[in-house]
């Protein structure tokens, strides 16, 4: 007890890291389920259905499968780099999430903010630093496998990441000019207030062009369809991870999904007000939204349990129903509602972005390589540069008018 009061930063940080890691890992697993379900419904299929009710235990089954598969290392590979590559990819992807603030810094335990692990003054720069070295995981995997298709995948990946990183960084500078800081908390706090008393002052409104550039470049940075050329299965077998099996393959998979989450979090923070609510404070009913949402979900699950479920699935779904209703009732308590308000809005926005990601995957075909390069250098880069120049001009206009 004495140790805890003497080292609050250390203890609270460790607990936060453990909890966040658990949440992110579970989130990653269920993101695969979410993606498979959404893409399936876009294509008029059911998606995973048999492992657990609505396939809800499918991620668990997949994880077990990855753990028990044979882990093969190609004899001609560069052993050290072959093993280093997936660790590098996953470690960097998970480090980036430590910088994200999930809720307001005012909610504290032992004097430490609960909803963020680190509050760096150069948060955004540091995040870009981490994502910019993330490419080594993919490039080294491609090279160390010592095989044709992975090498092509690794080459494509480095070329693509260099090309789109420029636009990604430039598209964000507009927001930085308006916010005047690199600290995530300050960027979010700068977005409080409302136009006409009800339209939130989020940066997406003055920076719509910047946002469109950002989201395009972000999809390219995370190697997702329509920019998934490093692993284009119709051309390169499986691209850079062709030679990987078992849990090393799973690590690349997890890194890709973790990157998706990071990029969505960053979009939420920079353009959509982070943990700020879209509704003015005077609309007090918004405090009960998470509870009401959970109760509605519980009601649907109860209906499903009674009408559609059979056998073991019925039992599982009863548990899900009880969890939803219990969670709903707890979040309806005003004190709890006030605490989870920030994280609730943050997660809602992030999930909306993740849905957008999956939606693009379900609807768009893959780019050809020359189209990818042309698009990146000849359209995205000039547009984000123009956005930057126009934004800075508008920013100094009042100053110019005042001083001639």
């Amino acid at each position, binding site marked *: 007890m004495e140790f805890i009061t003497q080292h609050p930063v250390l203890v609270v940080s460790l607990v936060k890291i453990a909890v966040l890691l658990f949440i992110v890992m579970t989130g990653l697993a269920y993101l695969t389920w979410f993606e498979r379900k959404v893409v399936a419904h876009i294509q008029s299929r059911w998606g995973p259905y048999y492992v657990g009710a609505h396939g809800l235990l499918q991620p668990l089954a997949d994880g077990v499968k990855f753990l028990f598969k044979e882990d093969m290392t190609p004899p001609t590979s*560069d052993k050290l*780099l072959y093993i280093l590559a997936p660790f590098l990819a996953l470690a960097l992807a998970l480090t980036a999430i430590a910088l994200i603030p999930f809720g307001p810094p005012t909610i504290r335990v032992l004097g430490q903010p609960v909803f963020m692990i680190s509050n*760096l*003054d*150069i948060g955004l*720069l*540091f995040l*870009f*630093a981490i994502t*910019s*070295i993330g*490419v*080594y995981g993919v*490039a*080294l995997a*491609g*090279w160390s496998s010592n095989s044709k298709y992975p*090498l092509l995948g*690794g*080459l494509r990946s*480095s*070329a693509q*990441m*260099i090309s789109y*990183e420029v636009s990604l960084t430039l598209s964000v500078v507009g927001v930085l000019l308006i916010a005047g800081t*690199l600290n995530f908390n300050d960027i979010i706090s700068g977005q409080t207030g409302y136009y006409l008393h009800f339209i939130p002052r989020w940066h997406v409104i003055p920076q719509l062009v910047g946002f469109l550039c950002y989201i395009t470049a972000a999809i390219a940075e995370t190697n997702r369809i329509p920019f998934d050329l490093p692993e284009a299965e119709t051309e390169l077998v499986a691209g850079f991870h062709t030679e990987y099996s078992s849990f090393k393959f799973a690590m690349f998979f997890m890194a890709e999904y973790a990157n998706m989450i990071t990029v969505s979090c960053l979009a939420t923070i920079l353009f959509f007000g982070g943990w700020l609510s879209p509704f003015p404070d005077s609309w007090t009913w918004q405090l009960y939204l998470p509870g009401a949402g959970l109760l509605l979900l519980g009601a649907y699950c109860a209906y499903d349990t009674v009408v559609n479920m059979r056998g073991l699935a019925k039992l599982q779904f009863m548990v899900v129903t009880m969890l939803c209703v219990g969670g709903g009732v707890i979040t309806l308590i005003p004190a709890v509602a006030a605490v989870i308000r920030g994280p609730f809005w943050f997660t809602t926005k992030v999930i909306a972005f993740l849905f957008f990601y999956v939606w693009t995957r379900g609807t768009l075909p893959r780019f050809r390589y020359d189209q990818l390069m042309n698009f990146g250098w000849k359209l995205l880069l000039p547009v984000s540069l123009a956005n930057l120049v126009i934004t800075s001009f508008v920013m100094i206009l009042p100053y110019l008018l005042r001083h001639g």
Partner: protein
Amino acid sequence: MTVPFLLFFICAFLAVLGAVLLIVAWEPIHSALALILVMMSLAVLYLLLGAEFIAAVQIIVYAGAIMVLFVFVIMLLNAGIEERTNWSQFAKVVGLPMGFFLLLATAHFLSRSAVGASIANGTGAVSNAGVSTRALSIALFRQYLFPFEATSILILIALLGALILARKDN
């Protein structure tokens, strides 16, 4: 023995290790990775000095952009294992002693400076007053505006020069 003090020696060791590996490695890609190790350790050293912005830029520009390009070119050319020559006799006879002398001289002068004293005291060369990004940019764009712009124009010229040299004749 504070944490920054330990970190300084770990990173300094890693930087030197990376530099040695860079020369010794047989595969070009291993050399490139060793260089990345040097750059990352340098970034941590900058962080220890309180220069957050420089540290982040060091990683973004050197480790994240330039070295990716290096690795890309090595992969593209599929450069194999280096051919080794017998080491230069001149370097063996003169270079090694000269290098050792330089190391000793640096150590001697460092041990007499304020930085060396703070390291010896166990406080490390850590300045608590970190240079904020705002202060850095004010210095860069007010005080040192001309050198900054001159450097960027110089880089632009080099870029255009490379482009013209690489262009095929029509």
